[in-house]
């Protein structure tokens, strides 16, 4: 009798990377549903278009690298990147915006660095920032939320949306509009209360901005599902949302005309929840230890607020995440956990203990 030689452990948990990725995809459904409900079919089309593009790009590069296409496509990581990018892009953006962004995300930001697990930057955010810098007009044209549509109009249907995206039709008047963060950016001279009174985006809303609060609640729900499934730990999201809340409380300025906005608006506007639970939780490009992820998240929270309040862009999750990606190895160096039996934490580079 001769037996197979395998090194321990022999038992393995059932979960695999493909399942993790699929769970992340499932968890985006509440957010996508809220986007579709509040802003029409645009985001749905973005997601599908980006996914198809991503799979084609990934397959092409894997083929060029002489690897097994089915093995690498099966990890679903390309689809996750594409879906997140699709969700972040403005609904009803021209098709080529989506395609250019996805191609950049998959080919340049991911595969050229060595594929899954080797990319130093969040691929979806790299694609997003490239688009934001290259095509500012297309990237800042948002659809108006359901509550703000002029009486008697509705969001374009699926067919009409496809025509807008692929054939360059213009959407009807009043379908596009500003976002809550835009409003605050351009409302200097008014007290916060006045802004809330005058702007339909706020006076039609429950607490943070019409439409957007639903989208953020959707992503929050998805994030809580992933947390409960232990796909990631609480450290990153709590770090970011905590820092964002803290910053917006510190600089709330009791609602004066120079106030950058209320904490609730900052937490439930723009890409806050999506960023906290779906973007900065990308493990490949984030810090590794729990403490490191807490700091990494907090850094993003602070940067998001700083850029939103005093920078040139209304939202800043993409920039903040990329800047924090740069900082991740540095954070890692100082945030090793304390190992059993050791009195102190070590630094990643020190061989001898003090």
């Amino acid at each position, binding site marked *: 009798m001769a037996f197979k030689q395998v090194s321990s*452990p*022999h038992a393995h948990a059932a979960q695999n990377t493909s399942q993790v990725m699929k769970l992340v995809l499932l968890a985006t459904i509440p957010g996508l549903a809220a986007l579709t409900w509040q802003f029409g079919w645009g985001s749905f089309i973005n997601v599908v278009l980006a996914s198809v593009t991503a799979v084609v790009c990934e397959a092409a590069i894997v083929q060029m690298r002489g690897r097994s296409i089915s093995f690498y496509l099966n990890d679903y990581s390309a689809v996750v990147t594409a879906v997140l990018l699709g969700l972040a892009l403005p609904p009803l953006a021209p098709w080529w915006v989506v395609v250019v962004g996805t191609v950049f995300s998959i080919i340049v930001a991911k595969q050229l660095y060595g594929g899954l697990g080797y990319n130093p930057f969040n691929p979806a955010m790299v694609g997003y920032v490239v688009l934001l810098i290259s095509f500012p007009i297309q990237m800042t044209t948002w659809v108006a939320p359901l509550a703000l549509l002029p009486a008697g109009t509705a969001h374009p249907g699926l067919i009409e949306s496809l025509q807008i995206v692929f054939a360059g039709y213009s959407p009807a008047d009043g379908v596009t509009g500003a976002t809550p963060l835009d409003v605050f950016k351009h409302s200097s001279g008014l007290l916060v209360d006045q802004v809330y009174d005058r702007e339909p985006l706020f006076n039609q809303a429950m607490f943070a901005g019409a439409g957007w609060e639903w989208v953020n609640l959707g992503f929050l729900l998805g994030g809580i599902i992933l947390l409960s499934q232990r796909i990631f730990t609480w450290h990153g999201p709590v770090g970011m949302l905590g820092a964002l809340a803290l910053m917006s409380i510190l600089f709330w300025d009791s609602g004066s005309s120079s106030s950058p906005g209320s904490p609730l608006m900052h937490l439930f506007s723009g890409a806050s929840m999506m960023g906290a639970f779906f973007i900065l939780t990308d493990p490949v490009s984030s810090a590794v230890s*729990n403490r490191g992820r807490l700091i990494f998240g907090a850094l993003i929270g602070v940067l998001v607020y700083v850029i939103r309040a005093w920078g040139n862009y209304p939202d800043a999750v993409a920039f903040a995440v990329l800047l924090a990606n740069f900082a991740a190895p540095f954070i890692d160096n100082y945030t090793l956990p304390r190992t059993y039996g050791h009195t102190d934490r070590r630094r990643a580079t020190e061989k001898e203990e003090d």
Partner: protein
Amino acid sequence: MSRTWVTPGGVHPPENKHQSVTLPIGQLPIPEKLVIPLSQHIGAPATPCVEMGQQVLKGQVIAQAVGMVSIPMHAPSSGIISAIEHRPIAHSSGMLAPCIEITTDGADTWIEHQGISDYEHISPRKLLEMVGNAGISGMGGAGFPSAVKLNPGRQRPIDTLIVNATECEPYITADDSAIRERAGEIVEGIKILSAILDHPTNIMIGIEDNKPEAIAALAPHVEDSGISVVVFPTKYPSGGEKQLIYILTGKELPAGKLPADEGMVCINIGTTFAIKRAVIDGEPLISRVTTVTGDAVGTPRNYDTLIGTPVRHLLEHNQFDEQAGGRVVMGGPMMGFTLPSADVPIVKTTNCILAPSYAEIPDDEPAQPCIRCGMCAEACPVSLLPQQLFWYAQAEEHDRLEAHNLFDCIECGACSYVCPSNIPLVQYYRAAKGDIRQAREEKVKSDHARDRFEFHKERIEQAEREKEAKRAARREATQQAKADHLAATANGTATPAPASGSGTGTAAPSAAPSSSAADIIAAAQARAAAKQANPEDQRAKLERTIASAEQRLKMAEEKLAEAVNSDNGKQDKLSAAVENTRQKLEQSKSKLAELAE
């Protein structure tokens, strides 16, 4: 209920323990051949003290302990010594090691043996000797000689005795079933341990809450004994020594320290049973409870197995289906290692033979890339960052690995277990540890060589300097002589006196170097004479020569035996070498004899 502490990390693999506890501990027929490896423990291998063809009785010593950290081996049954040679043993590398094979006679005749019942009145030293002579080494994992672990020659008294009944590995029920059936004897063993350790104040049996029957079995025996049974939630790897110490005491064992340094002794519960048998019944450690389980065997259950029983014997008596599974594991599914063949014998640390079916433990899937999801870090019981260790192990960045405390990894396998990308993380760490150890050894060697080289260079330079000084002195003397001579001839009024004057003039400086050379020679001769004169030194030197020659002879003979077994090409050369060594040894011995006279 005592308080318990919670370790970080850990995993909950399917326990699969119920299969093997439906039946009581079974007894197998005595196998035809028993193979007893001489090294079943940490420390020096035992040396055989029997000869081929010799009749041995059950319990008879067949190999003796060598040095402090070692244990003797005993015949597990009566029979005839049929081989003393290298055999495959239970080792993850599948290597061969020296073993003694006994062809059993089936009579199972015991050698005369006797225990003592009132161990309370025996000195701990005597009890320790009995434990040592019974060949007991830790039966939980590493196999450290128990008598050494319990030895009182330590810095501080032992105040805490921890008996490890955790058995956190899935599938294994050897300790569980032993406790169920032998709780009285086990507690007796713990009491003996307590006597050896001068009655520690705190005696705890640590056990996971998935063994209610065993806990209930212990309860009546520990009543009013000062021994507490501490139950804690089931989690892998709670049974690791460091983990158990933390769970029961809330203290972490400082890195690089032993439990004894902290006033603790941690011992496996199976070992306590062996200690009871050794002291009360006078029986050496020749059998142990071993679980045979997995879907590829017919009836999973525990057996009281003789040490040296080939795994084949266990499997064949248990309707093993070779087609059902691909691997046979010694130990559990988390830390056990696969056996190369079924000829490997059961040793003192073998708690389980796991023969899983493909459905239970399928072949490994290809590894996907690491996405640093961090599930491994969440599972790590010693708070390492396995994902970073993996990264640096791949890149062979040894400094980074050490900074990330690679050597604190206990190789429990929790990280690999949870890894969604199926990366064999532990294997990377083992390889990296090996590489680092090798690099360290090589560094020591190269440092040594460098020191030697530098010393050599220094010595040559020193000699050169001395020569140069002598040359310079000679040159000066010659010049001086010439000058004297010139002065003498220039004086013109030559008398016989200046000739002698110039003679002393040349003689004086040249005498200086020659006398210093003479000094060196004299000193060397004196040293040599002193050496000759000192028979103590000489004897010590000869004894050293003999010891090393004996060592060389033994090794050469082993090599020769190997060569005889394998090929005949080297045989002549090797036998010449053996003869040569033997002659040298004889010479040294005769010299020593002369000296003694």
